[in-house]
C-alpha cells in the first residue's frame, strides 16, 4: 500500500472474512471484526474475573476492578439519583466495552503484521447498536414508569403557553437526533484518529523512500507527530468512553425523573 505511492487510509476499516468468504450460501462468516470483538471481550473477561475475588484486604488487581465499578457507580448515582443502581449494568457494560475496544485498537500489535488490530469501534454498526440499546432503555423505562405522561419531557414546565408551542417541536427533534449523535461520536472520533495515523504513517515511509536530506527531516517530523497523535488517541479513547457513559446515564435520568 505504502510502496505504490497512493495512500489509502480506508483500507484498515475493511471487514474481511477470515474463514470462508462472503456469499449467498453462507450468511454467517467469521470476519476480522468478529475476531477482534472476541479478543476485546476476552480481555475484559480476564480483567474482570481476575479482580472479582471478594477478599477482605484487596490486592492491586481487585482494587483496580473495584475502582472501575465505583467510578461508574458514582457517575450513575450522581446523574440518575437513588434509583441509579438499577441502570448500572448497562452503563458499566457500555463504558468498559468502549474503553477496552478503543484502547485495544491503539495497541502496537501491528509489529507482527498478521496481528494488526482492527478498530471495531470505528464501525458505526457497533456504536450505533450501543446507542440504540441506550434509547431502548430510555423509551422502555419512560413509558413503563410514566405512561403517556412521558411526552411532558418535551414541554418546559414553567413556561408561558405560547413559548411551549415553539419549544416542544424543537425538543422533540433534539430527542430524535440523540440516538444518532450518541452513536456517531465514538465512531467518528476513532475513525478520524486512525485515518490520521495511517496517513502520517505513510508519509514517514514515503519520505524515507525519497532518499534526500529534506526527506529525513520530514520523516522525523512525521514520526514525532505520530507519537503525539497516539498519545492524543489514548486520551480520546478514554474520553469517548466516559462521554458515552455519562450521556447514557443523563438520557436515562431524563426518562426516570422527567426533568
Amino acid at each position, binding site marked *: 500500500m505504502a510502496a505504490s505511492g497512493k495512500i489509502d487510509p*480506508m483500507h484498515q476499516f475493511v471487514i474481511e472474512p477470515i474463514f470462508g468468504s462472503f456469499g449467498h450460501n453462507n450468511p454467517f462468516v467469521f470476519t476480522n471484526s468478529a475476531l477482534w470483538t472476541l479478543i476485546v471481550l476476552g480481555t475484559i473477561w480476564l480483567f474482570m474475573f481476575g479482580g472479582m475475588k471478594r477478599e477482605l484486604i484487596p490486592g492491586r488487581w481487585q482494587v483496580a476492578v473495584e475502582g472501575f465499578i465505583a467510578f461508574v457507580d458514582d457517575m450513575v448515582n*450522581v446523574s440518575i439519583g437513588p434509583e441509579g443502581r438499577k441502570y448500572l449494568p448497562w452503563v458499566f457494560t457500555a463504558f468498559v466495552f468502549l474503553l477496552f475496544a478503543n484502547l485495544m485498537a491503539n495497541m502496537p500489535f501491528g509489529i507482527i503484521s498478521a496481528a494488526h488490530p482492527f478498530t471495531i469501534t470505528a464501525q458505526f454498526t457497533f456504536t450505533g447498536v450501543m446507542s440504540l440499546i441506550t434509547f431502548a432503555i430510555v423509551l422502555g423505562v419512560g413509558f413503563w414508569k410514566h405512561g403517556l405522561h412521558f411526552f411532558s419531557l418535551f414541554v418546559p414546565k414553567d413556561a408561558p403557553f405560547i413559548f411551549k408551542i415553539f419549544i416542544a417541536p424543537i425538543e422533540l427533534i433534539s430527542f430524535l437526533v440523540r440516538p444518532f*449523535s450518541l452513536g*456517531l*461520536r465514538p465512531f*467518528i*472520533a476513532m475513525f*478520524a484518529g486512525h*485515518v490520521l495515523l495511517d496517513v502520517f504513517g505513510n508519509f514517514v515511509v514515503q519520505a524515507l523512500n525519497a532518499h534526500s536530506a529534506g526527506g529525513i527531516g520530514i520523516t522525523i517530523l512525521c514520526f514525532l507527530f505520530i507519537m503525539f497523535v497516539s498519545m492524543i488517541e489514548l486520551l480520546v479513547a478514554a474520553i469517548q468512553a466516559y*462521554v458515552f457513559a455519562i450521556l447514557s446515564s443523563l438520557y436515562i435520568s431524563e426518562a426516570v425523573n422527567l426533568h
Partner: protein
Amino acid sequence: MDVASAKLIGAGLAAVGVGAASAGVGYVFGSFLQSAIRNPAASDGQQGRLYIGFAAAELLGLMAFAVAMLILFAF
C-alpha cells in the same frame, strides 16, 4: 472544472468546520478554567458538565470531518 477536482475542493472546504469546532472546544475549556480558578472548591463537581459541553462542541467538528470523508469516498 471536472468532478474529481470539485470533490477535492469541496472536501477541503468541509474541513474548515473542524477549525470552527476547535474554537468551540477551546471556549468550553477556557471558560471552565476561568470559573474553576475563581472557585476551585466547586470545580470538581462540574467535571461531568465540562465533558458534556466538550462532547457537544466536539461532535459538530467531527460532523464536518464526516462530511469531508463522505465527499471524498462516498461519491
